[in-house]
Structures are given as structure tokens and as C-alpha cells.
């Protein structure tokens, strides 16, 4: 570091150092072996998990690797065809519904269709 740079309190990296640092980033990306086959497997796993709760448009699902803010991310784009919300309804004992069900649970399914 030269005297003037020292007084200014900064040190500009040399072109050689810039090349080294850029190369490190590039190689880190090259070495992450996220191949298309692995992405396809991840896509299937995601579909399996999501399909239990929601119906997605499988033809339009896209799963890709991306880089944002210095971090690798998996970006999944999964358009929802129809929301399917299902739950077991166990009404509180004091309600009339509980009497009607006689201690049983009620299976409720709510669907919301896409506006198309």
C-alpha cells in the first residue's frame, strides 16, 4: 500500500487480485453440480409434497437454480390450479354441531376454483 493510499484509508485491488477473486466466484458456481437430472428429482419431490394440499398445474411447473444476493437459491414456479383445503372438524362439545355429530369428526373439504 502506498503512502497516499494509506492516508486515504483505502486500497484498490490490483487487476491480478480482481482476477483471482472473480475466478474464485466463477469456480464456486461451476463446481456446484446441480445438473438437470437432480433438478428434475427436486421438482418431483416438490410436486409430491404440494399436491397433498393444493392442485398445481404440472405442465407449467418450473424449478431452476438462481443466484441472488450472493446466495444460491432454488426458484420453484408452481401455478395453482385449484386450492384444496381439507381438515377434520372436531367442534367444541357445547355447540349444537357436536351433538349432531355424536362425538365423530367431520371431514371438511373446501375448494376454490381458478377464475378462468
Amino acid at each position: 500500500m502506498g503512502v497516499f493510499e494509506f492516508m486515504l484509508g483505502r486500497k484498490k485491488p490490483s487487476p491480478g487480485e480482481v482476477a483471482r477473486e472473480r475466478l474464485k466466484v466463477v469456480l464456486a458456481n461451476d463446481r456446484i453440480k446441480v445438473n438437470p437430472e437432480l433438478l428434475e428429482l427436486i421438482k418431483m419431490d416438490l410436486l409430491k409434497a404440494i399436491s397433498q394440499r393444493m392442485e398445481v398445474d404440472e405442465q407449467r411447473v418450473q424449478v431452476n437454480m438462481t443466484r441472488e444476493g450472493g446466495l444460491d437459491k432454488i426458484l420453484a414456479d408452481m401455478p395453482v390450479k385449484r386450492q384444496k383445503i381439507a381438515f377434520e372438524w372436531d367442534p367444541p362439545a357445547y355447540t349444537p354441531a357436536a351433538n349432531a355429530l355424536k362425538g365423530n369428526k367431520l371431514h371438511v373439504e373446501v375448494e376454490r376454483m381458478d377464475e378462468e
Partner: protein
Amino acid sequence: MDSRVITITSGKGGVGKTTTTANLGTALAMMGKKVAVVDSDIGLRNLDAVMGLENRIVYDLVDVVEGQCRLRQALIKDKRQSELYLLPAAQTRDKNAVNSVQMEQLCQQLRPEFDYILIDSPAGIEQGFRNAIVGADEIVIVANPEMASVRDADRIIGLVEAAGKPEPRLILNRLRPEMVRRGDMMDVADVLEVLGIDLLGIIPEDETIIVAINKGEPIVYDKRARAGKAFLNAAQRIMGEEVPLEDVEDAPTLMERLRRLMGFGPALTEKRVRS
């Protein structure tokens, strides 16, 4: 005979594979070894010209593989070294003229006759590259201290590993000491740090190499050329001799020191040691 097949490759083109093959081959022959240099860049024959043997070609690698001639007929004896032979590439065929099995058989055919068989690989990572490494015991990667070349070298290291070959060694070619000194070029430690392989040699950029290639004479014959000396040292290391690494990064001049002190020059890059 204990022969060794060594493939010289790089990924990127134009970094000095052919020059390295010609010079390492010549250097090994100068030290009394029986050497064959094989040009496996089918369709883009060049090793013959670098060695000044382009006018002597009758048969080529594809002719041998296809049984058009015997191996002995295709091997061209060097002008100066009696124990150095060239097997040229075919010029009018494409790289699919030979497959991996044939290349491996060719290496087996050459082994009993030679101490060292150096294969000059084509650029790229396709079939030609695979053919070049299939029969190799060792791989030497040639890289220049610049991003594209080092990046490709890293890719090649991965492919060599995947092919089940031992860890390759590096020839860092065309290093410009004055640029490294100014901090304008990556130094040896930078490249080794990112690639993580062992160094076989450092070849400084040398104008006389172009003159040597123009004449068809390997630079190792030029006693004054720094690059020639560096290739000789690398050849000795191939033979297992301990040769200290060439000190290509000489001390900065007084003017450079002054400029740096005043803050006008690029900052001094501190020397890093490979961990």
C-alpha cells in the same frame, strides 16, 4: 520396459499444449530417453509443424488405427534426436475417425517401444479429449494465468478425476513476471490456490518461442531462452528429479519500489503460501 503415457491437455485452445508436448518430448529425448510424441488432434494437425517435421509425413495416426500401415511406418524420426519419434494426426479426417478403444490399443502398441509416450490432446472436452486421456497414466494440464484458461483447467481436472485418472499436474505457461510484479496478472500462488493441484513447471512468456516455432525448432535447444530452460526443468521433474521451481518473479526494480512507496503504482501483492 516401464513406459509412461502422459497426456498434455488444457480445455481451452491456444494455451500452449502443442508447444509443451514438443518441448517436453524433445527435452526427455535429449536426456537419453526413448520418446514418442503423438498428435491426437485429428483434423487440426500441428505438432508436426512445431517440431519441423511437416514435410516427412506419409502415414498418420488414423492410418495406423485402421490398419492401412504398420505403426513403424507412420512413426517419423526426429531431425536431431535419434530416439524421438512423432506420430502425426490425420489432417483430412474428423475427430470421430478414432474411438476410445482404438486409442487405448494404440497406447499399448507404443508402450514396448518407448520410455515416454506424450499425447498432445485437442482443445475441448468432447470425444477427442476423451480419446487423448483414455490410455494415459498421467495427465499434464497446461494453463495460462488468466481467467478463461484457469476456469477451463478446473473443468478438465474434474473430468480427469471422473475418468479415474490420478490427479493431474500443472504447467503454468506464458507467465509474464513483470505483469505479476505490478499486480496486473495472477501469480503462481493465485492459480495453485484455486486449482489445488501440483505444479510441474512455470514457463515464462518468451518471444523467442515464436521464433523457434517459426523455424520448427523446439525452444529447449536455445540455451539462452528462459522458456527453454523452464521446459528442460519440467522434463527433469517428469523423470522424478528434484529441480527447484524457477524464480520467475524477480525482485521489483528500484523505480517500481519508489513508485509504490509514493502510491503511484499498483499495490504490492503479498505473497501467499498454499495451505
